[in-house]
């Protein structure tokens, strides 16, 4: 059922996520091939975000959050006993639904934040990396002449691209996007979607979205979650045109969710 025509970058094996004794996501096995965009769709509360947060070990920071099963990044279990969760989060970047620029930092310092936390870098290297990240996030042209002003001065869409630049600056291998356009207007949404196409040349992207059209537009593979379970996964074009399961078709045609 899982796509297997490109080398896997990230994979889950029977991943179950819990809050104390409540199961939020049940036994999900998925492959995320390198240099692809995988969309996770499903109605609210189906466990999409929780699943995403398991991939970079953010779920365990939620109150009562724990998992069973495995998450493999280049065949190494990120939940292995010797793995430092902080190191995992540096390799797997994440962007949230609402823009979260650090309000005390300038635009430049926001992008540099993830670099600096990785250790001391010479100033010139930071400058280069900040410009590269801002260019990748398609924000450089708009902010290059005011890198030292507050990140809060940017519009919502710009703030979200700033957060993407901030996630890209430390050069992660995987990018997790948790409804990245959920609080943006159509123009901002379009910019982010275009970005997904450009970024998959360098990164493996997993995007959670409420917006079916968005999933259809940006992703190579789509996984449909329902009630904490993986119902179906496949090439996006196929899943949208010929869903194998009845629940998928019902959801896609707007009969629930």
């Amino acid at each position, binding site marked *: 059922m899982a796509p297997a025509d490109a080398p896997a970058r990230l994979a889950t094996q029977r991943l179950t996520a819990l809050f104390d004794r409540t199961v939020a996501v049940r036994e999900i096995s998925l492959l995320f091939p390198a240099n692809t965009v995988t969309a996770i769709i499903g109605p609210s509360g189906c466990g999409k975000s929780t699943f995403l947060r398991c991939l*970079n070990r*953010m779920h365990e*920071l939620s109150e009562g959050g724990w998992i069973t099963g495995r998450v493999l990044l280049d065949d190494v279990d990120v939940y292995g006993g010797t793995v430092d969760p*902080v*190191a995992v*989060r*540096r390799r797997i*970047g*994440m962007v*949230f639904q*609402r823009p*979260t620029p*650090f*309000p*005390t930092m*300038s635009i430049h310092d926001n992008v540099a*934040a*993830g670099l600096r*936390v*990785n250790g001391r870098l010479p100033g010139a290297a930071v400058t280069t990396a900040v410009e590269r990240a801002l260019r990748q996030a398609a924000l450089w042209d708009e902010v290059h002449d005011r890198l030292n*002003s*507050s990140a*809060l*001065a940017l519009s919502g869409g710009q703030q979200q691209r700033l*957060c993407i630049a*901030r*996630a890209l600056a*430390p050069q992660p291998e995987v990018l997790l996007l948790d409804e990245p356009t959920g609080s943006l207007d159509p123009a901002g949404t379009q910019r982010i979607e275009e970005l997904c196409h450009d970024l998959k040349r360098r990164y493996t992207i997993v995007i959670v979205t409420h917006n079916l059209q968005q999933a259809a537009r940006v992703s190579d593979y789509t996984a449909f979650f329902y009630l904490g379970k993986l119902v179906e996964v496949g090439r996006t074009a196929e899943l949208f045109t010929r869903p194998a399961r009845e629940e998928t078709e019902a959801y896609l045609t707007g009969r629930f969710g």
Partner: protein
Amino acid sequence: MSARAIRRRILSAAMTGLVGVLCAAAVLPLVLIFADLLHKGATSIDWNFFVRTPVPIGQSGGGVAHAIVGSAIIVGTACLIGLPIGIGAGIYLAEYGTGRLGWTVRFVADVLNGTPSIVIGILAWTWFVRPVGHFSALAASVALAMLMVPMVARTTEEMVRLVPHSLREAALALGYPRWRTSLQVVVRTAVAGIVTGALVAVARIAGETAPLLFTALGNLNFSLSLGHPMQALPLQIFTYATGPFEEWHRLAWASALVLMALVLLLAMAARWATRQRYGTR
């Protein structure tokens, strides 16, 4: 205009007027106090008032330099002791204080917040004055620090809690270790609020009199020694206002004006500290 629209307008005007009056009533005491202090104290303030110590009754040209310096030393030392403990406790409570220990610390801080300052003064006397055998400025600083800690801890906690959870998550997702997330993102975002809380606490304790009666005691002479009795502005006001001499009453008014002005300056500093760092929004 319909009757309903007219009724709305009248009601709106009446309510606006009412809140205006209430607002004035809230501000009035401060204005009255300041006006009265200016009226009765300003004329006694001259250069000598700030640079000289008291002169014998009957002579003129005495000042309260020893009390101003004394207040600065006592309050400054209290800050050195109280602020690190208070701010540290506040950060702990906000970031890690979910368990039983956090609950206990919070409860103790609230009780301590409600403890009359004279009780703290007596406590400081029992611990730091009686065993040593004489009054001291340090004992006063400790008493004031004990008053500061719960205030500062609770305001710091509230300010740190105000930082959105999403900001913390963003830092953690970026590979910040927990402690760096706390200090470099969460506390840094809350720092303006923490500074305000600290300055408000300083302003509060600067005017405390009761704890000083049992600890610093007061001193007619200039003293810089933490180990000995020291004069402070509130003590100076207390002594002079309750004394029998007209000259003393004048100086009491003037001292009260200076103390009030210092507190006002601190409040303004607090405002200045909380202004937006970047001129946006």
